[in-house]
């Protein structure tokens, strides 16, 4: 058992994956000598060499495209996209090649690639450094998409993603990299990667979140409890495939659901969850499924990002509204 930040847990998970399988290679901008701008790959090049931890030229399509070739040669590339807003130059390679090669080749070509993306806002950054592009990848058949929300999950999930034979977009809540600290038990049995999880049981309403908004929802549940309302919080963990079994089970008990993410609400993951929960739990619902998310504006300048990001008050307000129907 070690106390770790989320950043350190990812670093330890990557190290373990590299020790376990010498086909694992890390590639990206500044991931080698510097250890990444967030230090997630700190020390890995020193210990595994520059053939396995590769500082690449600055070209995202080039990084992902060459990672495809390495995967075809039997490697397991772990690609770091420096910030969420810089994934778009690689979008074509991700959507047209990474996602489709298994299908196009009738399963003969596997692309066991992990694309790590620090995502979300709240760090006071300039433009393109605070975005939540997950819906674009969830909407792409052939990709799997997961998001970690805490150090213990981060340590395990990154290894599971690397071990998976399918391409995985791995979203890391950058706001929590150095603030979230927790005990990580390296020898604890791992939950399957493709499962969501109830992180706080409750009975009056259900909150669903992933990545950075899980802690927002846990805080909201604490405050609601003081006011006599019991909120259940579910950490989705996997966005594609979506594991809504615990969500359906929860909504059948609570009758109320609020989905919380930083991404723009329109056609976001919350919209999909609302549709599916309506299909599955129509008769249990006491209120429409509500969404709390980023506005349908570009991510704003840092001085007003708190207004854009779902916070405790907006979450509790939505919960109140579900009781108003």
């Amino acid at each position, binding site marked *: 058992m070690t106390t770790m930040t989320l950043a350190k847990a990812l670093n330890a998970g990557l190290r373990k994956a590299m020790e376990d399988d010498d086909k694992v*290679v890390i590639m990206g901008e500044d991931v080698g000598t510097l250890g990444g701008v967030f230090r997630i790959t700190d020390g890995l090049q020193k210990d595994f060499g520059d*053939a396995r931890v590769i500082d*690449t*030229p600055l*070209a995202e*399509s*080039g990084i*992902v*495209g*060459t*990672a*495809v*070739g*390495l*995967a*075809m*040669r*039997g*490697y397991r*590339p772990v690609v770091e996209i420096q910030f969420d807003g810089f994934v778009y*130059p690689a979008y*074509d*390679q991700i959507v*047209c*090649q990474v996602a489709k*090669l*298994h*299908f*196009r*080749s*009738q*399963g*003969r*070509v*596997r692309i*066991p690639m992990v694309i790590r993306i620090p995502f979300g806002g709240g760090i006071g950054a300039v433009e393109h450094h605070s975005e939540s592009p997950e819906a674009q990848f969830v909407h792409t*058949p*052939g990709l*799997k998409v997961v998001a970690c929300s805490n150090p213990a999950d981060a340590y395990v999930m990154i290894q599971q993603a690397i071990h*998976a*034979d*399918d391409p995985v977009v791995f979203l890391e809540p950058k706001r929590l990299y150095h603030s979230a600290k927790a005990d990580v038990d390296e020898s604890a049995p791992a939950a399957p990667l*493709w499962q969501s999880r109830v992180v706080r049981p409750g009975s009056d309403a259900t909150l669903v979140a992933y990545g950075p908004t899980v802690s927002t929802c846990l805080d909201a549940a604490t405050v609601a409890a003081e006011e006599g309302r019991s909120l259940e919080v579910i950490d989705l963990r996997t966005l594609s*495939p*979506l*594991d809504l079994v615990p969500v359906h089970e929860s909504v059948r008990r609570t009758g109320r659901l609020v989905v919380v993410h930083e991404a723009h609400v329109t056609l976001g993951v919350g919209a999909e969850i609302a549709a599916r929960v309506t299909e599955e739990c129509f008769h249990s619902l006491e209120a429409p499924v509500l969404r709390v998310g980023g506005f349908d504006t570009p991510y704003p300048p840092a001085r007003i990002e708190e207004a854009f990001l779902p916070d405790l008050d907006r979450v509790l307000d939505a919960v109140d509204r579900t009781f108003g129907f």
Partner: protein
Amino acid sequence: MTDPVFGPAPERAPDPELVQLLTPEGERVHHPGFDADFSAEQLRGFYRDMVLVRRLDIEATALQRHGELGLWAQLLGQEAAQIGAGRALAPQDYVFPTYREHGVAWCRGVDPVRLLALFRGVDQGSWDPAEHNFGLYTIVIGAQTLHATGYAMGVQRDGLVGTGDPERDTAVVAHFGDGASSQGDVNEAFVFAASFNAPVVFFCQNNQWAISEPFERQSRIPLYRRSHGFGFPGIRVDGNDVLATYAVTKAALQRAREGQGPILIEAYTYRMGAHTTTDDPTRYRLSDDVEHWKLKDPIARLEVYLRRNGLADDDFLAEVAAEADALGERMRRECHALPDPSPHDLWDLVHAEKTAELAAQQAEYDAHAASFEEVS
């Protein structure tokens, strides 16, 4: 006009000499850098390959006309570039093709019927890339050049560059067109290959056209010189000369296998047919141009050379023609017999590990499909 500070802008450069070993008239010429000897058997092999591949192409075009294929991308005129490049490969080398590399596919032992299946809409590539060391056709132009470069980086990591063992040292070929040379991916591939000194040969068939756009729209300088800005050599070869293409590609591959890094080959050729069977080139090019290039036909010049030097007789030529007829007949027969895939399988192909979500959607489809069977 010369800028006083920056110097002259390069004028649209005149076409440079290209490496040629067999003139359009069928005359064997010599080149100081690439003076190879070819055995009679090898020369007859090139001829046979080109004739069969041309037949394959004509047959597929006809099948499209008869409604058996949805589309076909013709290689007519590019037989020498592809056979030269394909026959220069060692078995362990790996090739990343575009959608037009039927001649290279032939050299890699991919059954032409597999190509028909793709263009018929039966599948999106049904050969095993690992079995043939020949990747799947890639339609997004230029994307595969990055895959080739990454694959070559993998070869480096496997320690299969510069060992001195000709059976093990491995090179990778990235095919692309003159139009693709403008894509970011191709330029990024050049950067990565140069930076990592990857054993990759960039093989550009400059067939003068990207659908309707002439080469001049892509570049002010001869294409092979692009590589110089990236820090590796480039060379232009007569892409209608199978001997020169073979010799240049072989040398480039050897250089890459030895660890001397990437190289760009511009195979200067001409797309004699339409871009694809949906295209109408009379809307954008003069038939005079096509007539001019007819005189440089890759097969005719080799046939003249073989006959004139007594390397092939009527029997041999008749034998190859008969083989081409048989190939055409087999392609027609097997194309007609290609079964449609089952929609049921779609969900099985998305991931290596099928998700519960997809399994549920598949079951829903199956139930829906079954409901029709019960009615009928």
